[in-house]
């Protein structure tokens, strides 16, 4: 819990409990993105729950996945109107899921990173995690460790680059 305690002291980052919804289309990496968030939160010592609906996840339809972390998490689903963050891998999914955001909640959309600077288009999910990470209490190294674990090691350098692109571009936006 040290990370969380430090974060609260600094008062610069969103304190847990934290509700995150990641939305996109099947095949865009929504589930992997939430795996990474859940992993880094678990290793930081939080209680974590993640809920996914993946029956249609490879057929190009809307996919949304919830991650919650904090001292004790009950329901695995982010209640409507209580999401702190809505991370959308496809812009149209913002409107589909906006009702989940709390007043003052933060949206992170594809335009938050310069897609032209990504080694591969499909690394958008990792880049947007970089954006998100700048607003959460877990340390950069911890995030990169979870990114490393989530993919084939041969893609780590490119993924690291994508993550840092998102993170660096948005640190100044931290609340």
């Amino acid at each position: 819990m040290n990370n969380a305690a430090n974060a609260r002291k600094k008062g610069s980052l969103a304190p847990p409990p934290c509700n995150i919804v990641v939305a996109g289309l099947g095949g865009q990496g929504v589930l992997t993105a939430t795996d990474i968030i859940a992993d880094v939160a678990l290793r930081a010592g939080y209680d974590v729950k993640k809920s996914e609906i993946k029956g249609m996840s490879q057929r190009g339809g809307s996919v949304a996945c919830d991650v919650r972390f904090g001292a004790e998490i009950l329901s695995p689903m982010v209640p409507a109107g209580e999401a702190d963050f809505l991370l959308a891998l496809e812009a149209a999914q913002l409107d589909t899921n906006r009702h989940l955001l709390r007043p003052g909640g933060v949206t992170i959309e594809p335009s938050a990173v310069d897609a032209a600077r990504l080694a591969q288009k499909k690394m958008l999910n990792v880049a947007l995690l970089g954006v998100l990470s700048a607003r959460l209490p877990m340390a950069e190294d911890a995030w990169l460790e979870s990114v490393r674990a989530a993919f084939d090691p041969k893609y780590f350098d490119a993924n690291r680059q994508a993550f840092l692109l998102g993170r660096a571009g948005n640190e100044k936006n931290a609340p």
Partner: protein
Amino acid sequence: MDAGNKHLLSGDEAIALAAWHAGVALGAGYPGTPSTEILESFSALGGRAQWSPNEKVALEVAIGAAFGGARAMATMKHVGLNVASDPLFTAAYTGVAGALVIVSADDPGMHSSQNEQDNRRYAVAAGVPMLEPSDSQEAYDFLLAAIEISERWKIPVLLRATTRVCHSYTVVTPRSGRDVPPAANFVRDVKGRVMVPGYARPAHRRLRQKLGEISAWNEDCALNRVVPGGKALGIITSGISFMHAREAAPEASVLKLGFTHPLPMRKIAAFVKSVERCVVIEEGDPYLAEAIRAAGIPVEAKPEMYRFGELDVARVRRILAGETSPEAAPPPGKPPQLCEGCSYRVVFDSLRRLKCIVAGDIGCYTLGSLQPFEAMDSCVCMGASLGVGLGLRHVLPAEQARRVVSVIGDSTFVHSGISGLVEMAYNPPPTGHVVIILDNGTTAMTGHQEHPGTGRNLQHEPTRKLVLEDMARSCGIRRVQVVEPRAGSDAFERALVEALASGELAVLIARRPCILIAKELKEYEQREQRCQCQEKGEPCAATL
């Protein structure tokens, strides 16, 4: 994902891990969302897991293993238990020598199912004990408890989970080490296992006696617990609803039921007495509320509108507030569709163009009912395309009957289409009939599992292949044709037009591998080649 001995597992993975730790000797099932990952994870851990052609066979195999004194598990989605219900009801009479756990993964809200039936009713109907976990830790603990209960009372146990338990990842702290279960050994028990009327009558009485004992034992069972809170509001709940209810009403006292058949009525009555108002919070059918009220215990049930769909924190708040105003529908997302480049697109283009009346079935291809194809007229259950198509052919006027086609996928055909084909040859409609088997070489919708028609087992290793065209011919269908549906080619449509015009019984196999698994298929084929070369003792090109 893990930190120390804490693992972030899905409910399915937790069930698999518990089965592994319990020394389950055999897990059998048929893929179905949200149950599929249980056997895949069990196999990955080193467990002996297999896909059977359908859930009925899977359960029968598990029953056999449990008759042999082993610990066995059968897994399926909720509708799979309909298929397996025949063995379930009588296995409750026979009981088992070892342990038998049946995992039913229900899908309230129908994320990926054709109905939202509540399989808690099966526990009552068949007369088997039932446990309902509410997160992955409980999925783990309850599988272990189910094995113990099954072994102690020699009875099959139903572990009933739901989508949000199966597919939510929550922290699990497993116990250490694996059990060494008793070795399998056959002990003859003709009166116990042969359910002819003379033996089944006493077996039914034995079952009811066991349930009576289990019911008394359940009164003090640790799987049901009270979360103390205020006296003003009491909540009785089970499964995932427990989590929503705790979050929606942190001030309430909660009776959390984990062992939900037979119910601990004395415990429930005492809890209800201890609070001023008592509401039952449950997803799906009002199973708990009805049973508790039937026992003469006054509790509030949810309003009827909450029978439909999943519960969540907001809906539980509404139930507690007695709110029955219409609920705002969430904005519609983008519906799924057949993949770009999917060969089934060619088939549905033709079906639409030829104005066919399509009796459909269950799989990816059910998406052919949506835009832009809208080329499917019915979808009932696994295998129903055959029977429904034949029924239409029998009664419709000839000019309509001649346009009726049954469309079924390869895995679904093996699951329960074969009997329909036998029916077609046995009771042929006067206008003939056309069955299209969409063969993409995998159980695609559930995440690309193997089936007997792929010639590979759950572990993707080679095994005897069921050849669909041979099967069709041996059922008595003379007009059997294999066509590759390709964009830009009219070969499939020509074959369909000819089959429809023939007035005969025809099976058209539209065969082209699913584009999503092209890479995996290549690997499997190389592996098969290696195996064959090893058998022959020849050098193998696949290893060079």
